[in-house]
């Protein structure tokens, strides 16, 4: 056990700044991708509710396809595949785009479930009380939806954070790729990958705990 732990004492000072910088990259990548996924997911769920059949079909098709295709295939397609037809992304941009495209579908499903959870009486009452449909949606419905989907939305962010590790396979210099280059430099893959795992845990776990705290009794 002490032989296992010794490298942390020997190299900890060298590893820590490398890992911290990689953590920042992972966090930046995840937050950018999540914001984009959130916006795109909201648009998708508006498409699902749209009165235009074409938009509804597009949203349904999009969600089905994205649910059935691995993120890794999407990332490879964006980063290695699209240059073949003249569209070039840098690795970080491709990772953000890929994560956002895939997680938008999950965000859209959350919005849909959230909207379904609000009783119809809420908007009926708002309309009867003289609110316009837009006012009723923004002032009455959305705040309640936000409360319902808050906890699952945080869990979705944790999933995205974990899946951002796949960006290492398209050469984004985040935690896992940093770990790989450290492992080839120090020949201590076990200690280094465990340290990488701890870094992810340090970011993800507080969000997991927060999400459980915020979960509503009915959905817990």
């Amino acid at each position: 056990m002490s032989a296992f732990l010794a490298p942390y004492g020997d190299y900890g000072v060298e590893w820590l700044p490398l890992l911290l910088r990689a953590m920042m990259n992972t966090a930046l990548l995840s937050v950018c991708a999540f914001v984009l996924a959130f916006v795109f997911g909201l648009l998708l769920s508006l498409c699902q509710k749209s009165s235009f059949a074409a938009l509804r079909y597009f949203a349904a098709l999009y969600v089905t396809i994205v649910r059935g295709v691995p993120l890794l295939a999407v990332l490879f397609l964006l980063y290695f595949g699209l240059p073949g037809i003249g569209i070039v992304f840098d690795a970080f941009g491709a990772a953000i785009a890929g994560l956002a495209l895939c997680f938008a579908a999950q965000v859209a499903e959350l919005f849909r479930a959230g909207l379904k959870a609000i009783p119809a009486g809420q908007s009926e009452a708002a309309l009867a009380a003289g609110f316009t449909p837009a006012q009723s949606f923004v002032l009455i419905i959305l705040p309640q939806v936000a409360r319902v989907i808050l906890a699952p939305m945080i869990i979705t962010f944790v999933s995205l954070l974990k899946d951002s590790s796949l960006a290492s396979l398209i050469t984004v210099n985040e935690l896992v790729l940093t770990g790989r280059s450290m492992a080839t430099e120090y020949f201590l893959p076990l200690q280094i990958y465990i340290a990488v795992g701890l870094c992810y845990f340090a970011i993800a776990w507080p969000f997991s705990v927060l999400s459980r705290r915020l979960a509503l009794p009915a959905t817990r």
Partner: protein
Amino acid sequence: MTGFSIFFSVVEGLVAGLGVTAFVTIASLALATAFGFFLALLRQFAGIKLIDPAIDACCEILCNVPALTHLFILYFGLASIGVKLTSITAAVLGLGLIGAAITCAIFRAGFAALPGGQAEAALAAGLTPLQTIFEILTPQAMRIALPGLGNYAVQLLKDTSVVSAIAAPEIMFFARSMVTSSFQTTMIYATAAALYLLLSLPLMQATRFLERRYGRLKG
């Protein structure tokens, strides 16, 4: 070569990975379901002081660290201290253990959703605690858990693509190695994506059927 014959050779190349993708998916699913169910029973009914926090801690670690990192620890990390796993063993073990944490939560939610009266009535009717758990509670909890398990299976099928990173010869692995020998990058990855879609559509359909039949699992 014409476009079509290139396409067919790409499909042929990718299908070579189908067996390993299917094996890793099914073996991980079996390990995850069996071990997750066992953990859920322990956590829900045994009430052993030291075991409960240990199970919780393991689940937290498995659920808050990416699969890729777990796979690297199992495959590259353990090899450095002399425990050499094949890439497929490491893949099944890694995905299976992560899956056990996920299915444990799904099964526990299933047990927790049952009204307390079920166990009380079974015990009052003279069934032993073990009979109560296995003959009364488990079948009902299983029905509640099924849609959640279906969603997990779809996710797992897609996640097996990650094990190409530890050189397990599945679909994505063949896609990546074909790309290095031909320049049909766009078509190869698009075909791989389509192949995964083709595999997951029936699973998604089955899950939707289970959801309609047994009601949506909340949470």
